């Protein structure tokens, strides 16, 4: 439930596919005042006067097509990286295809297919039941687990070109915890505080959890609270827990505990020019091995500031142990500069310094080009 974006509106202003309009009869030119005319929307509403020309019925077969979008994530890297798997010089890191639509009066569906050099996969594909009683929201399908903030976010809405070290080390690598299962979220508003509790159950096949048997499910729980401080500032606090078999042996399990905090500032009168987001996430991991268990800790603190209509500057500090190795913590820091030519494309540079617990240091410059076509649904906060 807690899919979130620090930049809610990136790629969010979407256009209905032009095909809809191609079907609209050219009854009048844009300069001339147009008489009230029903456009082909699925919601029938009375109009004050009859339509001057019937809307081409040929459009109706396409009206129910889902919103479609493709987002390209092109990544370039330079500098020193002595790890086994450095980012390549140039890479189409990901092409994400999204198909989103309402299923029926009770549900909607969202599919995100990810094509990357590692292959094609369903990044997420789920149905959301929007009309359940008891303020419940149920999702079923393959989901990014609601553990913390960054784990729920797709690559293209991250404020960085990469994912933090703690995601890589403790939450199962680049993809994080994404698995097939169910997610049930309930709102518990107390006064003006927004509280949401989420309970999720998964099959146990992700970067962290591997179920030796069908009955070895993994579980994720989350409680988040949100409060408006003023009309321009707000604060969000979340805590998460995850538990499941890790697949090292038939009995070994991993427990994860997370805390995240987000502060946002965005003055309403200048909302398109200025904003600040500061966020930190802490994760504790206890992973059982053949002999004993390895306990580790990881965190990141990140901030992004918009200083002009199209410009953002950001920084991130990373620290993280490793899930199964008892080595000194990996540490890192990044500086970022992002430029938006429009809401539908984005250019980003990131300087990244990493000092691995094993002693090596990496100094890299990463360059990212994000571009989107089609209608991509708006992101949740």
């Amino acid at each position, binding site marked *: 439930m807690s899919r979130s974006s620090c930049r809610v509106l990136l790629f969010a*202003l979407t256009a*209905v596919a*032009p095909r809809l309009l191609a079907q609209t009869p050219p009854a009048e030119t844009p300069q001339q005042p147009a008489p009230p005319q029903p456009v082909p929307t699925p*919601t029938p509403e009375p109009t004050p006067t009859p339509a001057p020309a019937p809307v081409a019925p040929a459009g109706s077969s396409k009206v129910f097509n889902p919103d479609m979008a493709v987002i390209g994530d092109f990544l370039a890297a330079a500098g020193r990286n002595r790890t086994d798997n450095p980012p390549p010089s140039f890479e189409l890191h990901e092409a994400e295809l999204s198909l989103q639509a309402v299923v029926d009066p009770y549900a909607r569906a969202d599919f995100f297919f990810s094509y990357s050099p590692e292959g094609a996969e369903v990044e997420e594909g789920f149905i959301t039941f929007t009309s359940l009683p008891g303020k419940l929201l149920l999702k079923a399908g393959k989901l990014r687990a609601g553990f913390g903030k960054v784990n729920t976010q797709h690559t293209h809405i991250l404020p960085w070109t990469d994912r933090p070290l703690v995601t890589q080390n403790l939450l199962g690598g680049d993809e994080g915890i994404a698995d097939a299962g169910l997610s049930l979220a309930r709102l518990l508003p107390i006064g003006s505080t927004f509280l949401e509790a989420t309970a999720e159950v998964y099959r146990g096949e992700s970067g962290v959890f591997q179920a030796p048997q069908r009955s070895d499910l993994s579980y994720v729980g989350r409680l988040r609270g949100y409060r408006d401080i003023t009309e321009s500032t707000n604060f*969000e606090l979340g805590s998460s827990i995850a538990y499941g078999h890790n697949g090292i042996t038939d009995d070994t399990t991993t427990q994860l505990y997370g805390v995240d905090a987000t502060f946002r500032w965005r003055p309403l009168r200048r909302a398109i020019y200025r904003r600040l987001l500061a966020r930190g996430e802490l994760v504790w991991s206890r992973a059982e091995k053949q002999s004993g268990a390895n306990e580790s800790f990881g965190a990141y603190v990140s901030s992004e500031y918009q200083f002009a209509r199209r410009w953002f500057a950001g920084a991130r500090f990373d620290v993280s142990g490793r899930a199964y190795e008892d080595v000194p913590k990996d540490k890192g820091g990044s500086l970022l500069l992002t430029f938006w030519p429009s809401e539908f494309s984005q250019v980003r540079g990131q300087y990244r310094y990493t000092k691995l617990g094993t002693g090596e240091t990496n100094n890299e410059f990463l360059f990212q080009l994000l571009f989107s076509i089609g209608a991509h649904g708006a*992101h949740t906060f």
Partner: protein
Amino acid sequence: MNRLLPLVLILASAPPARAAVNVVASTEDLASLTREVGGDKVTVQAIARGYQDPHFVEAKPSFITMLMRTQLLIVVGRELEIGWLPPLINQSRNAKIQPGSDGYLDASLSARILEIPTGQLTRAMGDVHPLGNPHYWLDPENGRRIAGAVRDRLAKLDPANASYFASRYADFDARLSAAEKRWMAAMAPYKGTKIVTYHRSWPNFCERFGLDVMGYVEPKPGIPPSPSHTIALMQEMKRQNVKIVLVEPYFDLKTPNSIGRETGAKVLVMPPSVGGEKEITDYIKLFDYDVKLVVDGLKAAGAAAR
């Protein structure tokens, strides 16, 4: 919540004639029109503030709580809110306000919409609205139509008060008509005056009051000003003797001000919505304010009154 549940049930089972209809409007303009019609039989909250760019509202969780309890959601439509309202509706857990339900009212379906594009559209045109210009509430005639649609919908949700809503509407209609005469008379001397606006927010306003929008500070909808476009615009403004530039309160004044210095045109910060300035507390006051602003601006700029 468990402790609140009995209370919620009591409220829900109360006879509809007693309980006010709980309405959320996406903007303060729609909220104001709903108050005109609904009177004390409705409670109305707006999501976007009048001084905020309605294209870029944040989908804050506090709005989810607001939508969770509402019986009627009134939206501007024409994709104005597409960047933020759909996720709020999805997470509202409120079946009543899902699009297509009686509790969802798209105000644009009763209004006269301008600038509906025909032919092929691409994003090379900027943030063009494929379903037409969504700033349609800035024509009082559309305000009247929206109020009519709200009256009909409220009557459907609360039939016991249908005649109350009808008489409130009739009263608003009369006051609006009287005010319109005033506004038209004030603007009449300036019919055909050429102006420049920042964004394409004013086609309905300008059509109603006889202003001629000759250009925009934005090179394309949603695209920030560029030097080459600004230079071309200033040249054209001088050639056509344009005296005023209208800027919505949420845009940066740097470029408009330099256009003003260069061309001698007056830059007016003109609120397109109720709440855009403190004294604009309702729909009729919005036009009172804007018409006075334009008339005073044109007078001060010495535009020839014909």
